[in-house]
């Protein structure tokens, strides 16, 4: 009985915070746009009783999903988002792994400080941090001033409002999500395993590839998912740092909602995005499950 009560609490939250909102979005995506408040029809009206519910049900259709396939903007935006998310995740891994490795191999008394430094940026608003990148990356920004001052370049580099700026923004923002799981995997690594590998004839580098990397695999996978999933639907970074050519589904979604006031199409875009995201989330969960089994 008490066990059941314990399980009910998380399921209740899942229902209230995920499933109910999702069903509302799904309902809107099956509606038609209208000049009204809210800007779609039909709306569920219980005052007409059973007939009202039947009418409501009959008015729902898949028109908006069909519309998404007719305009190639949408699938291009999905593909472009996927590409940006994959590349950005890979770049974050390249930057994050050495940092996590350095932290895990730092002297014990340094580790809390290093951990603090990784988490510290979260204490400032995410929006302000992305804005400050505009100041760094713009044509008159600090980076160009520095490079021109050192004589590396004569013309300012155009970084802001390109995909490069988006990658920089994503790597910067999501780096801690990559570092922390990898660090926790590396920290648990038994140092005698590396000594054993060396004892059996490995050089330091081979020992790293054959022992350290496979044993931090779960951290790498967790970090990659933690970066990939929010990046796919990212809206703030591409709209502030990206240019007109940066096509991401988060931005398209925002424009449908607020510029076109087409809630049903926007909801359809969101439903598809969720379906795309559910695949990596399921993969992620299965990985976690496998890891728990291996540990148990």
């Amino acid at each position, binding site marked *: 009985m008490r066990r059941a009560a314990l399980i009910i609490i998380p399921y209740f939250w899942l229902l209230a915070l995920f499933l109910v909102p999702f069903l509302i979005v799904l309902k809107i995506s099956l509606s038609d746009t209208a000049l009204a408040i809210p800007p779609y029809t039909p709306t569920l009206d219980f005052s007409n009783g059973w007939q009202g519910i039947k009418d409501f049900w009959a008015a729902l259709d898949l028109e908006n999903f069909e519309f998404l396939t007719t305009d190639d903007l949408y699938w291009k935006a999905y593909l472009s988002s996927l590409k940006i998310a994959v590349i950005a995740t890979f770049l974050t891994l390249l930057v994050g792994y050495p940092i996590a490795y350095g932290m895990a191999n730092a002297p014990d008394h340094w580790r809390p400080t290093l951990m603090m430094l990784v988490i510290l940026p979260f204490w400032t608003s995410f929006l302000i941090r992305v804005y400050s990148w505009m100041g760094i990356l713009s044509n008159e920004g600090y980076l160009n001033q520095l490079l021109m001052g050192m004589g590396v370049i004569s013309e300012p580099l155009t970084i802001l409002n390109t995909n490069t700026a988006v990658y920089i923004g994503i790597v910067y923002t999501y780096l801690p999500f990559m570092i922390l799981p990898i660090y926790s995997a590396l920290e648990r690594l*038994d140092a*005698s*395993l590396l*000594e*054993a*590998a*060396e*004892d*059996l*004839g*490995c*050089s330091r580098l*081979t020992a790293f590839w*054959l*022992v350290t990397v*496979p*044993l931090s*695999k779960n951290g790498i996978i967790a970090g990659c998912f933690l970066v990939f999933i929010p990046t796919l639907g990212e809206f703030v970074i591409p709209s502030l740092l990206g240019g007109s050519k940066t096509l991401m589904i988060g931005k398209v979604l925002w424009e449908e909602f607020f510029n076109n006031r087409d809630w049903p199409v926007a909801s359809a875009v969101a439903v598809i995005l969720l379906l795309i995201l559910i695949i990596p989330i399921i993969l992620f969960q299965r990985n976690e499950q496998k890891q728990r089994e*291996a540990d148990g």
Partner: protein
Amino acid sequence: MGQTVFEPWNDPDAKPLIQFKNVTKRFGDFVAIDNQSFDIYEQEFFALLGPSGCGKTTMMRMLAGFETPTEGTILLGGQDIAPIPPNKRAVNMMFQSYALFPHLSIWENIAFGLKRDNMPKDKIDARVAEMLKLTRLEQFAKRKPHQCSGGQRQRVALARSLAKAPKLLLLDEPLGALDAKLRQDTQFELMDIQEKTGTTFVIVTHDQEEAMTVASRVAVMDHGKIIQADTPARIYEMPNSAYVADFIGDVTIISGTATPAGDGYDIAFAEGQPILHAKSDIQLAKAQSCHLAIRPEKVAITAEKPADAANALQGKILDIAYLGNLSTYHVELANGQVVKSQTANTRRLSRRSFTWEDEVWLSWTDTAGVLLKE
């Protein structure tokens, strides 16, 4: 058909496999190994025994190549090994934690070192199969380490470190993680495998019983120094110091002053107690202070004073430790000195002759005790 006794350390022509020459190792101000020189011979099973922090692990890590001596040289087969990194040494180590690779199967763990040598595939297969057979792990080849019991993991670690056929195998507390029963069986298994492969083994342990069981020679260490290195029997019966006598097995140490008498000494140890007699070769001046170390099993316990014992003392039973096969009596003399006596319980359910507070006589011959200098 007599078997030749294996004791190369007594043969002046024998070439040692390993030579420590004035080796000192310091960590900052701390002296871990203090100017030690000794030899280990081929096919030996050499045990480094001592309390934690005595430097035995440092000694082993220097052989493996994870530490380098601060001063002095270590020779392996006549060659200085200081410049050779661990991955190039013909030395393998079995780690205390076993250090099995958790992401690899038992088979892959054993093949790990062979693959690094770019051995052809069929030879790797044959060698791994041989190692699995040697350690009786054939059915477990496909399992991962976490699916194996402690005893099986121990055998995998042994198979992995033996796979490359090293000249020297180092074992760091190899049986420390096993329970007492399994540990005993494994000790004999280790000796068997050592004999079959003919590999030189160096074992580090803090368990004196384990060292005595498996080793051809035992080196007792303390504070970075080898106090005595000898066969288990000589270490036990002829310790060279009170430290060794006390560290190995059970012992009673009586401190007194020696006076030469015949081919031995008379030892006076307390007011009102009889003079003790011990035969000894050591040189002591008159009235020089000394220790007499006596093993409890060499002390007889009787109700009446024995007629013709070289040494006889009267006391009162303070404690009795019943160990099943043996009983150890702690007998307190009038001056407060406690002497231990051990008797074998040869008969089942025999009447216990003595109990607490009984007045008893302890006696031993003049060759039973070992006389040690201060």
